[in-house]
């Protein structure tokens, strides 16, 4: 088993409302997987469970060979190997852009300030925001904030990036700059699992598309297979509603 991430039989309920009902999912290194599905289908919850931000009710998650769903593992250590970007950015409003990016480097990786700052500036340069380093997040546009959030997630050189509908809160004209960045990351060989409503982007960039419906994976395959010739009725129904 060479998968970087391997989840098996993930169950999750909030109260008595089931959200995930036995999800199996595997990602190889350098693979870009798009997670599609209607609102409430469990995409966000699945990402949060995989990122150990939400405890699962059953099943197993392996990162490499390690069972990270075991309560005996140090979840903080695992989380620092993953990079998560949220729909509403979740930047820290009391920190400058640069400090947002370097926080984990300084506090978790214990890098000296000078080193963390130079690494942070490189990352900001990469997302095209080097000139905003000293600004505070609230003064940036949504697209800029989300690019900062991506830089923040990249800071610790995570093995896997989890993107939770990162363009859903953005104005249409700001979506492009964020997706361009994701495309560049994918071309550089990052491993990405992204929940998204951007179907054309998923078709262009993802190696594999996974369709989640009511807490189950109904269908998955290459973008050509899923978008071009969906096998399941529910996938077809979802796609016609979405592409219309």
């Amino acid at each position, binding site marked *: 088993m060479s998968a970087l991430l391997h989840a098996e039989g993930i*169950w999750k309920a909030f109260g*008595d409302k*089931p959200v995930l009902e036995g999800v199996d999912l595997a990602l190889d290194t350098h693979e870009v997987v798009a997670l599609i599905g209607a609102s409430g289908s469990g995409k966000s919850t699945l990402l949060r469970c995989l990122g150990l931000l*939400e*405890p699962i*009710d*059953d099943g197993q998650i392996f990162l490499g060979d390690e069972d990270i769903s075991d*309560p*005996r593992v140090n979840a903080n250590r695992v989380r620092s190997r993953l990079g998560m970007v949220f729909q509403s950015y979740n930047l820290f409003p009391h920190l400058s852009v640069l400090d947002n990016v370097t926080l984990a480097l300084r506090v978790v990786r214990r890098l000296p300030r000078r080193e963390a700052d130079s690494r942070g500036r490189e990352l900001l340069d990469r997302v095209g925001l080097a000139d905003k380093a000293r600004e505070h997040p609230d003064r940036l546009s949504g697209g800029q904030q989300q690019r900062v959030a991506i830089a923040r997630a990249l800071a610790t050189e995570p093995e896997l990036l989890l993107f939770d509908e990162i363009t859903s809160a953005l104005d249409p004209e700001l979506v492009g700059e964020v997706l361009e960045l994701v495309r560049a990351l994918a071309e550089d060989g990052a491993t990405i699992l992204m929940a998204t409503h951007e179907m054309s982007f998923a078709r262009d960039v993802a190696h594999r598309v996974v369709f989640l419906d009511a807490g189950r994976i109904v269908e998955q395959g290459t973008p050509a297979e899923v978008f071009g010739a969906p096998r399941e009725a529910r996938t077809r129904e979802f796609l016609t509603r979405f592409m219309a």
Partner: protein
Amino acid sequence: MTTHQPSALELERRSYRRRRSQRSVLVAIASTLAFAALVWVTVINTEGWAKVQESFFDPAIALKSLPRVWDGFLLNLQVLGLSIVTVAVVALAIALLRTLRGPVFFPLRALATVYTDIFRGLPLIIVLYLVGFGLPTILNTRIPPVLLGTIAFTLTYSAYVAEVIRAGIEAVHPSQRLAARALGLGYVQTLRRVVLPQALRKMTPPLMNDFVSMQKDVGLVSILGAMDAIAMAKSEVSLTYNFTPYVVAGLLFVLLAIPTIRLTDWYAARLREREQTGSVL
């Protein structure tokens, strides 16, 4: 399908978590007992402990002084009850004055600002003296100390509480006002239906704090000659030369404060729960 039979692995993980939390409880109990024993042994072996116990914690004297101290305590409660109502009204009025916009209201705004500045800075005891002894002198009548105390507490605490309310109102994001006005709600309607309910949530912890603070400050009415818990305790002390009655009075105030403090914690926890979905790490 809503019921899911957990796998053996999940059951093992649950039992591991259960064992962990049981162990945590046991460790907590053991450490508490050990700590309590340590404190106890240290205290009773401290030189002079016998004397401390005798003059501060004499059970017989405590029991004997309790009825009178309790009677006095009822007077404190009376002052507290009256003050809560008057502070609520006055503080809200002042806070609203401070948030009024427009040049016409400048004098009112300024007056409210000056008021909060002065009464937050002025020591409560000076306000008590000025009101408690000054007011009857000016009016040349006898005024019951309960009333005088209530006036003094209202003057001081309204200033604090008004600031808490104002901060709460201003902490509600301006977009909320915009949304309410866009729906056609007027200034007062917006305030009452949208701004204040949200502000109240933000204000509750600091308000509770002021409330606890006021609960014990009502003990200061004793300096106006009111026969409250502290004055009663003082008179008991002067009879016996034993300080236990003060401890009894103090204990009553602590017991009064504890429910409020717990209530504050509970309320804060409930707000956190309601505003947060999913788990908190």
